[in-house]
């Protein structure tokens, strides 16, 4: 662990510099969220000037009939419900692909892999065309249904189930008279939980960060997630200048909880991907 001194200094300097780079926009955001709209332009961006965070926040939350909290709840709903359902579907499918022998198994798996490689935003327009035809655009379903498919989740779950669930255990449960559904819900889900946490987190962030899909699907701003809402505020700032500050403050409110979650949950992001990549 002992490297020569000059090398050590370089190492620390590089890592610190990188940390500065990754934190700069977040640091700016924290400062900017406390400023008035005029100070945003008139004062130095990297230090406080007449901080008034609570005043700003109360304006953001009440603007336009409390639309911002509504967007936040929409985002939570899309990402939360979508990720839970996606995880369950992936777990069941991954388990089936790993632990049962049946005709067409490899074909199904190849199909899933092709889904992993398909660009998700190239899919947004086709989804819009189809959903428009059957009247699902501008509904919560239009965003939720595509969000519960996670081919990558199925892939991870299959690989994890193969190593984490022993055939003997399943056989023992069957001899004890447990049905397949019961085995899955009581035994398999528990054994697969590390992989499921990973799939859930990935899907949650994926849906939370998604922009193209809600953009094409939704026209009623009361159904918007935060991402879409903030961009509309930013674009309307030409006409209503105070919206610049609302965009900044709204971004601040949405980024902070996720940043904290990232730091706390950081260790859970490791497990799943290793299973995927190591066994390549």
């Amino acid at each position, binding site marked *: 662990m002992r490297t020569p001194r000059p090398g050590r200094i370089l190492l620390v300097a590089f890592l610190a510099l990188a940390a500065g780079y990754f934190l700069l926009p977040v640091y700016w955001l924290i400062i900017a969220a406390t400023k008035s709209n005029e100070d945003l332009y008139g004062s130095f961006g990297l230090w406080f000037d007449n901080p008034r965070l609570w005043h700003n926040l109360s304006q953001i939350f009440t603007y336009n009939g409390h639309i911002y909290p509504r967007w936040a709840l929409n985002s939570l709903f899309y990402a939360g419900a979508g990720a839970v359902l996606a995880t369950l579907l992936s777990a069941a499918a991954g388990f089936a692909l790993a632990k049962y022998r049946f005709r067409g198994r490899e074909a199904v798996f190849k*199909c899933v892999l092709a889904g992993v490689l398909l660009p998700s935003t190239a899919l947004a327009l086709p989804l819009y065309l189809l959903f428009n035809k059957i009247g699902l655009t501008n509904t919560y379903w239009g965003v939720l249904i595509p969000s519960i498919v996670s081919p990558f989740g199925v892939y991870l779950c299959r690989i994890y189930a193969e190593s984490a669930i022993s055939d003997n255990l399943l056989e023992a449960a069957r001899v004890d008279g447990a049905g397949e559904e019961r085995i899955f819900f009581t035994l398999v889900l528990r054994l697969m939980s590390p992989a499921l946490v990973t799939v859930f987190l990935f899907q949650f962030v994926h849906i939370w960060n998604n922009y193209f899909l809600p953009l094409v699907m939704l026209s009623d701003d009361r159904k918007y997630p935060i991402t879409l809402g903030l961009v509309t505020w930013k674009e309307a700032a030409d006409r209503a200048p105070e919206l610049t500050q609302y965009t900044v403050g709204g971004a601040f409110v949405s980024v902070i909880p996720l940043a904290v979650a990232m730091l706390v949950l950081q260790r859970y992001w490791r497990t799943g991907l290793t299973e995927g990549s190591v066994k390549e």
Partner: protein
Amino acid sequence: MTTSGTSRKPAARRRSARPDRKAWTFLGPFLAVYVFAMILPICYAIYQSLLKVERSGPLGLGKPSVTFAGLDNYALALEQTTFLEGFGRVLLFGAVQVPVMLLLALTLALLLDQVKDRWAGLLRATYFLPYGIPGVIATLLWGFLYVPGISPVNDVLGKLGVQPDFLGYDNILWSIANIVVWEFAGYNMLIIVAQLKSIPQELYEAARIDGAGPWQTAWRIKLPLVRPALTLTCVFSIIGTMQLFAEPLVLKRLAPAVTNDYTPNLSAYFDAFANANVYLAAAKSVLLAVVAMVLSFGFLSLIGRKRKDDR
């Protein structure tokens, strides 16, 4: 489903056959949504891409009707110089941005291996943090850092006598590249770190006894062993680059250099929603998906062949 209620004895005799049929019960829900929200839209988009609106009567003022167009839309898309330029632009973008990002991710992952655990954890989390920030919000933030008058970066550089033009015609592509690197370098680093952690410690022990320094260990042992992770991150990055959309769309208002055809995805989007030509948009979406899949499959098979040659 039908056999579940039968008496114990025959069920026990056919034990090996019975549970396997249940596979479809578990696969069913996923496959149903997969077909509905992935396969069906693609088929529908392919179908739409083969149609066009035709107006009858003199001067094309008659009633519009949708007719079969064959490959006309594809021909039209491929004749649009701006659309092809968009493809060229994302390819150039990817050729620069993906290696820079992966090199940064790899360097950070290898360097973090040299740091005490407590600090490594904190730094790792710091580098990973941008991944949790939505692309459009990251773009809004960097947009503020690019705009003269509000950006502290411009203020500081201005004091040093430099007048950067992040949103200018020549720089905007690389300003977008910076945003994408910022968002995903930490995520890719984490994948590489995960692979590094799975390398057995004895290997390092052996290398140390053989007199290998940290540089040699990194170059000769760690680098070859994280190759699967690099492959994975590279494929995902290629797919990500091809679908570049939100970042240029949000920066469009700040940078006039970003046109409606700046990337293939933008081009398809504006065809569908601004030009009201969903059939052309469908053709462009299909083209984009095909190119992205060909590139990532091509890259995978290239890596696969190389590995076979190595053996």
